[in-house]
Every structure is written in structure tokens, then in C-alpha cells.
């Protein structure tokens, strides 16, 4: 499958409270057309900032993209003019956010908010855009969409709002959909509805999805490939089956073992000691070393690169480098 987007050496920093935070620290990855890639990692590991950097929506100040390239259809998005970039946003690449409660503008009708995007990118007049909006709402399973289009966000439930967000994101048939924790705020049964809808839409529209989450269950269910982030970096990358079967990075290993499973026994859970490090005060060497059970002197000294291991796998760990940790 041809490559749709490729991120190279992306670096995004924040200046927060006088301290420099390397929220995204030199990461590279790519997505194929129609492929779903999940990005997992703990809170604050840089997942959202990565996606915002691709959209060039990093709030500035305090944030700034300081390096790298994002190649999309042969163009570097980071080098485009703001006007050109606007033509891509919401059109070729769209985005859904975590909080369906706050991501819709409370003072505009949901129909207007969807139609706005359509009018903007497809140059349709109001009536036509409205018609399309209603059709879209119907596709995502909103009952009596003609009436619902006139509702304000607060009149909808969380699940419905997230559907509206999806409809909005899909309204221009994007090539890439970035979903930043699209179900975290929802109840389990509603989450199942939304994931189901996303799968259907993926089939219908055939776009690539960059799915950000920290729920490994969602990953297992949705993704083709997985990127694991830790402290602003990608520490592991693998096809979904393989990562669950045989994680390479000790962080991934710990993560997988520390979640209680329905099918699991009731023994003590595996524990990754310590907590996520403060990005403005990263430990030397491998940022994971203070929590890593296998860390050696080298881990404390040197930062491991993301190494390609096997056909479709990468990991950043001295243990896997063949060089050892001593």
C-alpha cells in the first residue's frame, strides 16, 4: 500500500512556567493509505501534541514546532503557507477530539457547525451543504436528522456529540482521520457504539486513521499497527498482533502486564515502579531507565535510538540493540 503521510524527526516544544518541555522529541513514523495506526502511551507522553503538530494547531505561545517534516501527498505540511494549510485541515486531514462535551461550539447549532466545513471546502451553497449535513447525520445513525441538525450541542448526549464530531470530520471525505482519544470520555456501552461506527465509516470512506488512545483494549480492537510513546518519544512500533504477542520494549511489556484482564487471574498485578517523568526534567540516558527492571549503566548514560528490528518492528532499547546495557 502506498504511503499517505510520513512524519520525520518531528520536534515540538513548550515553554511552560519558564521551563522547556520537549513534548514531542524527534519522532518519525508513517501511515499507509487506509491503514489504522494506534498511538498509545501514558498521559503526557506527547500523543496529542504529535497530532496537533501534524495539523499545525499547536497553541503558540507556549508551543512551537521546532523541527522535522510532515510529508503528505508530496508536500511538507510544516512548510506550507497558513492559507494552504487551511485548505488541508478539515478537508484532507480531519480530527476528532477526546472531549465531545467541549469540542463543539455551544452557541451554534450542530447542523451549522457541520455545514460550515462543507461550505468551506466543497464550495457548496448553504442549502446544498445543509442537505449534505442532514444526510451525514443520517449515516452516523442520528434519528430524525432534519430536526437534530437544529439542536445545540447541549441538547445532545455525549455519544451523539461524538457522532456529530465524527460526521464533521468525515464531511469532506478526508484521506486521514486523526482521532485523539475519541472514546475516553464515554461510557463503555457508548464507547462500543462509537468504535463500531468508526469501523463502519472506515469501510465506507476508506481513509487512514491515526488513533490516539491509552486504552490497549481499544487498540487491540481497532488498529493495524501500534506506536508506543514514552516521554515524548516513540519507544516501540509494531503490527498489532505482534505487539500483544511479543512486546519488545520493557515499558510496553510492563504496560501490557499491568492491566487487569477479564480472563486473567486475581494475583497481584505487575507493577511498573515510579511515575511518568516530568518532561522538563528528563533523566539522562533512556528516559525509562529509572522505572526499568532491566536497566543497566548504559541505559543511564546513553539514549537508545529507535532501531528497526525485523520487517515491521522498531524499538528503542539497549536490550534489543544487541549491544547490551552494560
Amino acid at each position, binding site marked *: 500500500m502506498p504511503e499517505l503521510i510520513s512524519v520525520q524527526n518531528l520536534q515540538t516544544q513548550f515553554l511552560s512556567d519558564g521551563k522547556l518541555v520537549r513534548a514531542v522529541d524527534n519522532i518519525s513514523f508513517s501511515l499507509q493509505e487506509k491503514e489504522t495506526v494506534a498511538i498509545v502511551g501514558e498521559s503526557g507522553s506527547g500523543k496529542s501534541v504529535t497530532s*496537533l503538530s501534524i*495539523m499545525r*494547531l499547536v*497553541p503558540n505561545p507556549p508551543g512551537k514546532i521546532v523541527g522535522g517534516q510532515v510529508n503528505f501527498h508530496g508536500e511538507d505540511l510544516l512548510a506550507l503557507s497558513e*492559507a494552504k494549510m*487551511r*485548505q*488541508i*485541515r*478539515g*478537508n484532507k486531514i*480531519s*480530527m476528532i*477530539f477526546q*472531549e465531545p462535551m*467541549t*469540542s*463543539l*461550539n*455551544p*452557541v*451554534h447549532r450542530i447542523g451549522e457547525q457541520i455545514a*460550515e*466545513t462543507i461550505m*468551506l*471546502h466543497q464550495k457548496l451553497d448553504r442549502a446544498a451543504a445543509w442537505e449534505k449535513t442532514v444526510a451525514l447525520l443520517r449515516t452516523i445513525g442520528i434519528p430524525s436528522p432534519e430536526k437534530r441538525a437544529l439542536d*445545540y450541542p*447541549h441538547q445532545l448526549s455525549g455519544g451523539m456529540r461524538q457522532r456529530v*464530531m465524527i460526521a*464533521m470530520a468525515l464531511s469532506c471525505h478526508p484521506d486521514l482521520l486523526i482521532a485523539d482519544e475519541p472514546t475516553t470520555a464515554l461510557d463503555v456501552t457508548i464507547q462500543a457504539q462509537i468504535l463500531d461506527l468508526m469501523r463502519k465509516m472506515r469501510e465506507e470512506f476508506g481513509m487512514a486513521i491515526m488513533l490516539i488512545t491509552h486504552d490497549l483494549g481499544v487498540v487491540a480492537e481497532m488498529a493495524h499497527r501500534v506506536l508506543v510513546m514514552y516521554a515524548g518519544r516513540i519507544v516501540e512500533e509494531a503490527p498489532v498482533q505482534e505487539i500483544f504477542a511479543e512486546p519488545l520494549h520493557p515499558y510496553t511489556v510492563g504496560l501490557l502486564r499491568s492491566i487487569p484482564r477479564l480472563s486473567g487471574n486475581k494475583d497481584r498485578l505487575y507493577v511498573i515502579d515510579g511515575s511518568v517523568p516530568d518532561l522538563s526534567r528528563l533523566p539522562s540516558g533512556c528516559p525509562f531507565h529509572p522505572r526499568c527492571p532491566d536497566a543497566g549503566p548504559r541505559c543511564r548514560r546513553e539514549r537508545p535510538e529507535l532501531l528497526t528490528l525485523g520487517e515491521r518492528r522498531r524499538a528503542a532499547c539497549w536490550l534489543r540493540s544487541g549491544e547490551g546495557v552494560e
Partner: protein
Amino acid sequence: MLKYTIKRLLMLIPVLLGVSFFVFMVMHLFNADPAALMLGQHATQAQIEALRQQLGLNDPIFVQFGRFLWQLLHGDLGRSLMTRGSVTEELLARFPATIELALFSLFIATVVGVTAGVVSAVKRYSIFDYVSMVGALLGVSMPIFWLGLILIIVFAVNLHWLPVAGRIAIGMEPTAITNLYLLDSLLTGNWEAFWSALQHLILPGIALAAYSMAIIARMTRSTMLEVIKQDYIRTARAKGLDEKTVINHHALKNALIPVVTVIGLQLGLLLSGAVLTETVFSWPGIGNYTVNAIMASDFPVVQGSVILVAAVFVVVNLLVDLLYAYIDPRIHYQ
């Protein structure tokens, strides 16, 4: 919405009743004897006592309050001790001047305040931001009356750009319809009067607006900054909308919701600030009138004007709440 409106209107009754009671009681703590005031310097004690009896000042206080309420219900606020005129009429004669000044100031304060606030927020940390926020700080720090005097000296006396005082040039009064000169002159197409009225409004308008303008600018700036951080603004940007649409269409309306409340409250402040502005600029409104009445211990007038202003304030805030409900669809009134 209609039901809510009616409910709110009904809620006005106890508040207004409370307001009247409050003012009435406060006024009765007055040191001065209204009868003695009415009679002037040649009066004897017997005459004063006779008048007290006649005015019902020797009745129990609740009887007096009942009588006062009864008259109030008929729109009668009693008679001025100084002029013997009906307080209702005297107040109504001056009310348009005050309203015109307050509305004009509110207009300046809102337009300038909101614009400055929005631009400051959007261009945060720019020169404009600093200048307007320093201006805003000065605005809330300067005493109105001092600002008024300085404006007169600079713009009227020294530069001769604007008239010193009064509502309109002598003899230019437009045909009375609403007694708001700006409006009346517009309605009658009397441009000369319009221009004159406008010129007369500028200095007192600015002096009065300074404080509110500053508050509104700061409020707008901070809510705007808050709104800009919201997720839905990020959503709007993610749709590919240009910055102007994002600000004007998506941010502004949300930012204005709290600002509207502040603007409503400002009208109250403007009405009370008018007391001093009117004094300084000899503006023939109720503020000036009230101050004179206070100096003269003309308590029916003080009582009447305080009740009038409070009533206006309460009603304006009701309107603001309704407007609030109108622009913010989240407020869902059954």
C-alpha cells in the same frame, strides 16, 4: 422562555418591595425635619408642628410606609420639600437626560471596551495589548469627577474643541418626542441639533464611560483568552476556518456571554456614576438633582430617585438575563 420571563417579572415584585421598604426606612433615619425644611427661615415652632401633623409625620412608621406604598403604586412619589413639585414629574423631567448620558456612555464603553478587549486578547502581549490594558487600569483608578474636570480644562477651555457643559447648544432643542436629544433630532431629521447634542455628550460620556470601558475591556480580554483556549476553537481551526472566522464566528459570541452580564451591571454603575458626572458637567439629569436634594435634605426626592434608579437597574438586569438566555442556548428555561 415566556414562562421564565413571567416568572422573573413576578420575582421583581418582592425585590422592588424590599427596595422601597429599605429606602423608606433609611430615609426615616434622616436627622432633618422635613416640616422645618419646608417652612424656611421665618417659621415658628407651632407652624412646624402644624405642618408635621398635616403631612402625617407623627403617624407610626408602618402607617407612613403603607401610605407611601399606596402612593407609589399610583406612581406618586410625593412632593419635593424644596420646589413643592411632584417628585414623579420632577424625576421624569430629568430622567431622559440621565438615560441619554448613561446609554451613550454604555455605548462608548461597550464598543471601545469590547473592541479593545478582543484585539488585546487576539494580539496578546503586543504593544496594543499593553497600551490598552494600562489604559484600562488607569480607567478604573481615576476618580470620575477628577477626570471630568481635567477633560473640561483640556478639551473645552484650552482647546475649544468641545462645549463645556449642558446637553445642547442654547435654543437647539429638538422637538420633544422621547426627550433623548440624540434620538429626537434623528427622528426629526434635525442634523444641527444632533451634532450639537453629540458634541455635548462626548466629554461627560467619556468621563462616565472610563470606568466601565476599562472593566469591559478587561473582562472581554480575559474571557476571550479563556475562550480561545477552548476545545471548540481548536475544532474550528481544525476545520480549516481562517482566523477571522474563528474569532468572529466562534470565539466572540461565547466570550460575550459573560461580558453581557458585566455590561448590564455597568448600566447600574453608570446611573450612579452619573451622580458625579452630572454634577461636574451640569448635566440636567437625576444624578445632579439627587445630589442637590441630598444637600438640601429634600428626602422625598432622594427617596424617589433612589427607588427609580434601583428599579431601572433591576429591570435592566432582568433584560440582561433574558438576553443572556437568548444568546446562550445552553441556558434552558422551562
